[in-house]
């Protein structure tokens, strides 16, 4: 399989879909479903395949083989579409060099699984001889592991091919475990593992229609809520047909929502939605912002995620309050940027050192009001050497409100904006004010800057300031007609903006479905938004509504 993929230099989703079709899928292929949908006049279909993300790869390996397996290596780059990698995942494939990387990863993982320390735990049987093939033991391991990796049982042909490969390798190498390693490696580079497939079956409730099969539903559910593959219980529910019943589906949804793995899923959702992948390239001019170390970057990202998890899952708080909450968590490193006391000696619940301390900013403190006033958002949406009302306003529009802000024209003169030592225009507001008098610039700046000005009390590294170049900073601003005086006021305006809620609902739905919301689904998402409001804007309730809705599993909306 590997040879065929690298040899053909498969770079497109269609080509890869063809490869997958060759892999003897038992259900009707997605390509066929697309044809059926097209014939019926429906334009949007469920995505053909979605490549699993690097985090999903890691989560699956940890779930199947345990967290001590090291997954180190480079993954193929993702594409953000409709604001989400989860949507872009259906547009990406694997390059020739990508296959080599996946192969290196797979070999490493497989070697760790069969090594002396782990084999007795991870392999459910012992071969008659460690120096020879043992088809029975290999079959037992590969069937069990393959079901978890492929998110469905292996077909007979697949299983026997893997067993035969393991046997041939074991015989040649004189080592049963080396044979098992070779076969496991092949499974880990298989498109059946690296891509999520939509398998269809006839829908008895709608004669002539199609529906996702149980395993596809199970994967849809587990990747949505856990950012990982289904566990054994969920696969069993799929196998038994439980996921096609209302009761069975709700039982599994509630189980997944009650699991600690939900935190992983919620983190993944917000990392995607808030574009936290950009932290990997975030850097500041350390001569200007010496506190913004590598540790600060890592902590800033984690601070926002901890705030989200604590507020939405632990406290079951109102989603909108994420933009006004004063509760957060800090490390000593972040304490230096916020300029608040944070000691580094608390112990975590299990007695080990934990650098994180719960922290609540005072009611009259302009710092730390909601996640948009946290170091992560502020630093992520600034320039390396200066803050940016424009970038911050643009991010608010695009990330929080799901609006599109056009990119600047290619021939804009930024000299005035970039001159932070300008003696005349000492603040960013003054510089942008002068810059935005140019007609080609003013249109977009009106969309972004009036919001971003409120965050000007925070420098590019997120540290609070009241002056810039000796001039007092004016933090007044406007968001969609709502005026405010400062960052807390902006947080309140975002909290009260109806699009803050509808944006989240849309993102959550698209994230889970792995595709942009089709026009035909608008009614569905509006209904979800209403339910979300009725439930007090509690995220777990929204997730439950989405995960138990029929639309979420429809092949075509």
């Amino acid at each position, binding site marked *: 399989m590997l040879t065929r993929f690298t040899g053909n230099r498969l770079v497109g989703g269609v080509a890869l879909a063809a490869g997958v079709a060759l892999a003897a899928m038992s259900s009707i292929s997605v390509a066929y479903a697309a044809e059926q949908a097209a014939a019926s006049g429906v334009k949007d279909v469920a995505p053909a395949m979605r490549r699993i993300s690097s985090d999903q790869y890691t989560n699956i390996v940890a779930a199947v083989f345990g967290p001590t397996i090291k997954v180190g290596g480079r993954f193929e780059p993702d594409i953000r579409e409709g604001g989400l990698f989860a949507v872009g995942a259906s547009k990406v494939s694997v390059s020739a060099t990508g296959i080599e990387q996946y192969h290196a990863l797979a070999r490493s993982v497989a070697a760790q699984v069969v090594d002396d320390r782990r084999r007795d735990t991870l392999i459910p049987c012992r071969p008659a001889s460690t120096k020879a093939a043992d088809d029975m033991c290999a079959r037992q391991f590969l069937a069990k592991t393959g079901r978890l990796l492929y998110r469905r049982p292996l077909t007979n042909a697949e299983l026997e091919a893997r067993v035969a490969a393991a046997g041939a390798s074991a015989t040649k190498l004189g080592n049963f475990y080396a044979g098992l390693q070779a076969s496991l490696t092949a499974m880990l580079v298989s498109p059946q593992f690296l891509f999520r497939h939509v398998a269809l079956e006839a829908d008895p409730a709608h004669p002539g229609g199609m529906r996702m099969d149980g395993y596809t539903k199970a994967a849809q559910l587990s990747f949505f809520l856990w950012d990982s593959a289904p566990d054994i219980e969920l696969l069993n529910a799929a196998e038994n047909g439980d996921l096609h019943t209302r009761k069975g589906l709700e039982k599994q949804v509630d189980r997944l929502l009650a699991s600690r793995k939900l935190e992983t899923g919620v983190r993944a959702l917000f990392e995607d939605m808030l574009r936290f992948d950009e932290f990997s390239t975030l850097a500041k001019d350390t001569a200007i*912002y010496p506190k913004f170390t590598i540790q600060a970057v890592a902590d800033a990202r984690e601070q926002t995620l901890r705030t989200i998890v604590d507020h939405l899952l632990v406290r079951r708080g109102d989603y909108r309050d994420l933009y006004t909450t004063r509760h957060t968590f800090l490390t000593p490193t972040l304490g230096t940027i916020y300029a608040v006391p944070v*000691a580094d000696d608390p*112990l975590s619940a299990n007695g080990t050192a934990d650098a994180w301390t719960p922290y609540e900013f005072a009611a009259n403190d302009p710092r730390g009001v909601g996640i948009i006033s946290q170091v992560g958002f502020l630093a992520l949406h600034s320039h390396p050497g200066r803050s940016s009302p424009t970038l911050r306003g643009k991010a608010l529009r695009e990330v929080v409100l799901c609006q599109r802000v056009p990119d600047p024209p290619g021939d804009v003169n930024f000299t005035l904006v970039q001159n932070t030592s300008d003696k005349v225009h000492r603040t960013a507001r003054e510089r942008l004010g002068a810059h935005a008098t140019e007609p080609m610039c003013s249109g977009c700046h009106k969309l972004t800057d009036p919001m971003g000005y409120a965050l000007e009390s925070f420098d590019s590294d997120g540290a609070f300031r009241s002056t810039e170049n000796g001039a007092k900073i004016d933090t007044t601003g406007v968001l969609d007609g709502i005026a405010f005086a400062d960052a807390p006021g902006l947080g309140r305006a975002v909290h009260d903006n109806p699009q803050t809620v509808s944006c989240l609902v849309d993102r959550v739905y698209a994230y889970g479905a792995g595709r942009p919301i089709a026009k035909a689904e608008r009614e569905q998402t509006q209904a979800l938004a209403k339910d979300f409001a009725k439930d007090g804007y509690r995220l777990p309730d929204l997730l439950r509504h989405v995960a138990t809705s029929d639309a979420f599993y429809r092949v075509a909306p």
Partner: protein
Amino acid sequence: MSIFRVSGSARLAGWAAALFAVGFSAECAAAESRSWVVGWFTLATYSQEGDCSAGINPSIYEVYRTVLQNMGKTPKEIETIFSDIGNGGPPATQELFINRGRIDGKPVNIYDNPMSAPDPKFREVDGKYAFGFNLDGKADTGYEGPESHERGVDNQYYRALGCNQNHRAFPPDRPTHAIYIWNGARDSSPAWIITVKGENLDQDGEVTVLFDRALKHATLDATGNVVADATFRIDPSPRSHNELKGRIKDSILYIDDGDLHLLGDPFNYVKLQLANTHARFKLLPGGKLEGILGGYMPWMNLYFSYSSHGYVAEVNESINYHGVYHALRRLADAYPDPKTGQNTAISVAYRVEAVRAFTLPAEPIKSADAR
């Protein structure tokens, strides 16, 4: 009161006082309190052309050549030894230099027995200027302060060692010996904390100045300097708690007397132990504190901060530790031993740079069950 006598009962009383000071009075006694963590602390140098009229002291390799010559080594033998002296040379070579002292004609460790070889008589700083304070009240003896223009500045530590190349620098440059020592101490030893308390620290007035040791070392920012606005828990031990009277005048913090005792680490700074403590710290816009701290220091403490490094550091720092001992002993200028008359303390002046910090009282480590 001398800093060189602290009884056991006094230590217990001091412990209680320290707990009270850190845990309670810090919140109640003063209207305003600001803390700084020390980011730079070394001998204050003011090296200028011509201030060592007899020249700069020989490098350590020149010293070693002389040692070998005095041992009767031939020029060829000396060259053979020096051909392989990188990184201190092989063990046999190291032993030669480490055991260059002689007692009853037998080789002894020179660092442990500095009197086992004659005083090499370091050349002294005989220029006009040096940082420090007029500690003895005599305006006609000593240097002139380069910034304060105070007359009679006593800084015999600088006089003793300031003509060694690695102790020479003109501000803002830093002497290489200081960089070597301080960087090691800063990154490994509990940080030193300065806290100033008063009614309004932006105005002139009397203040209380606390010198404490933290429970952890300072951390660095992306430029390699001690990061500002970090948080430190204060060591409750009275051994490193000091409360001195001070005053602020025109944004400069002055200390005019008192004893100061701060533990360092066994390797770099055994301890800072000052009598007749003086300070002149500028409270700079942006929150930094910079200035000079001086007083009388037991010169043996200073010597140990050199000799404890041993041979490798002597080579790397290129300063004759044996010469350090004799220079400090010879130029010590205070607290004579009542029996021998030998002065036990030497006037010193340190350059201090500090950035703002938060302080918290020490908190006992909580067990998992307790949480």
